[in-house]
């Protein structure tokens, strides 16, 4: 069989690789690849090459990545800020920029947000090399990372490089669960209630009706800790909702929701608690 022309070969090589293979290269410091790098190749890559052709994974990745550490990036403040920008590369790279990444799903993008209508997505938070010295700093990083990932997924922004960088941060090994749990889609009330019977790292047991204010009001312990009131939800969502309960709010006459609910019965507390779970995208409407 005639030898393929170089340009033609390059185009075909681009087809063998998963859309986000080049992100792996950015982490791989350009020259070394992990032993499991083969997983970045499409499972059916051999159908695109001549029988017996066995290129090295590294060469394929380099071809695909067209990686250049000095490649210009879109300036900060721009809606595409931080992303690699074109410097006249192959047309295959152009297509990949818009390709969905592992956890990106274009179908989940709502109409009200995006490059044209939503605020620009800033650069992802810097991943500390070591665990931050205080719990507050650690939690702030978890929240920033989780929120950035969720927003990036919504807007179709590539997240592969950030996920790979998190994988490389060994101190995050177990606590990565906090960030991953935040990405959960909303679930039914039954699912959330059933999950409350067991514990899982990255999740918290959440009281739909806040327990301390209810207890202070003399409400029954069987209601407060009853199965109807307990749900297991992502810990970071739990903090988000608890934070909302404690902050002053125009729509509650400048009171916090917690203050507003002080003289309300169980039913109203449960309605507000359930609605907050829906609006913060934990519970399916």
């Amino acid at each position, binding site marked *: 069989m005639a030898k393929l022309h170089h340009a033609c070969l390059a185009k075909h090589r681009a087809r063998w690789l998963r859309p986000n293979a080049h992100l792996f290269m950015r982490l791989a410091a350009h020259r070394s690849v992990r032993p499991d790098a083969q997983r970045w190749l499409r499972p059916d890559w051999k159908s695109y090459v001549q029988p017996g052709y066995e290129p090295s994974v590294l060469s394929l990745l380099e071809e695909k990545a067209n990686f250049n550490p000095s490649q210009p990036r879109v300036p900060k403040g721009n809606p595409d800020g931080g992303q690699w920008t074109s410097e006249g590369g192959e047309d295959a790279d152009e297509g990949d920029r818009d390709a969905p990444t592992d956890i990106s799903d274009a179908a989940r993008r709502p109409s009200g947000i995006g490059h044209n209508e*939503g605020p620009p997505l800033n650069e992802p938070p810097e991943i500390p090399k070591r665990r931050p010295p205080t719990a507050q700093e650690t939690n702030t990083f978890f929240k920033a990372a989780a929120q950035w990932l969720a*927003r990036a997924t919504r807007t179709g922004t590539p997240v592969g490089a950030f996920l790979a960088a998190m994988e490389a941060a060994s101190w995050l090994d177990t606590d990565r669960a906090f960030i991953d749990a935040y990405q959960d889609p909303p679930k039914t009330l039954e699912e959330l209630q059933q999950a409350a019977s067991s514990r899982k790292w990255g999740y918290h047991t959440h009281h739909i009706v806040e327990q301390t204010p209810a207890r202070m009001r003399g409400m029954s312990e069987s209601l407060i800790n009853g199965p109807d009131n307990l749900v297991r939800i992502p810990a970071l969502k739990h903090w988000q909702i608890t934070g909302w309960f404690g*902050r002053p709010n125009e*729509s509650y006459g400048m009171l916090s929701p917690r203050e507003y609910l002080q003289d309300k019965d169980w039913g109203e507390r449960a309605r507000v608690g359930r609605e907050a779970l829906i609006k913060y995208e934990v519970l399916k409407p």
Partner: protein
Amino acid sequence: MKRIETKAMSVDQLVAHFAENAMDQDEAILKDDNAKFRRLFWKMDEITNELMRRPGDQRTALLPLYHHQNMQVRLKAAIATLAVAPQAARAMLENIAASGWQPQAGDAGMTLWNIDRGIFKPT
């Protein structure tokens, strides 16, 4: 925190301070600093009241903040203008709620829910 003299400020200055405070609020939310959030909340309330007192109710000057780069600024601007531009403000809140940009989406959704239930009547 430096005390601001809202009475001596121009409308443009008030709008700029409003946006600045909302951005600080965004950071306070991220850091779970509710004390700072509260201080900023009342400062922004003071700014909104000062704009309302100006001839012609200058809260409408906050409308351009719907296009601000920060989602907390957009949220606070929408809430502050509900009485002077109800349709536009509601549309903005609906947009934020549908965006999934948390935690502002949750806050916007709850605000709309409270309007619809008659608990919140913007004035």
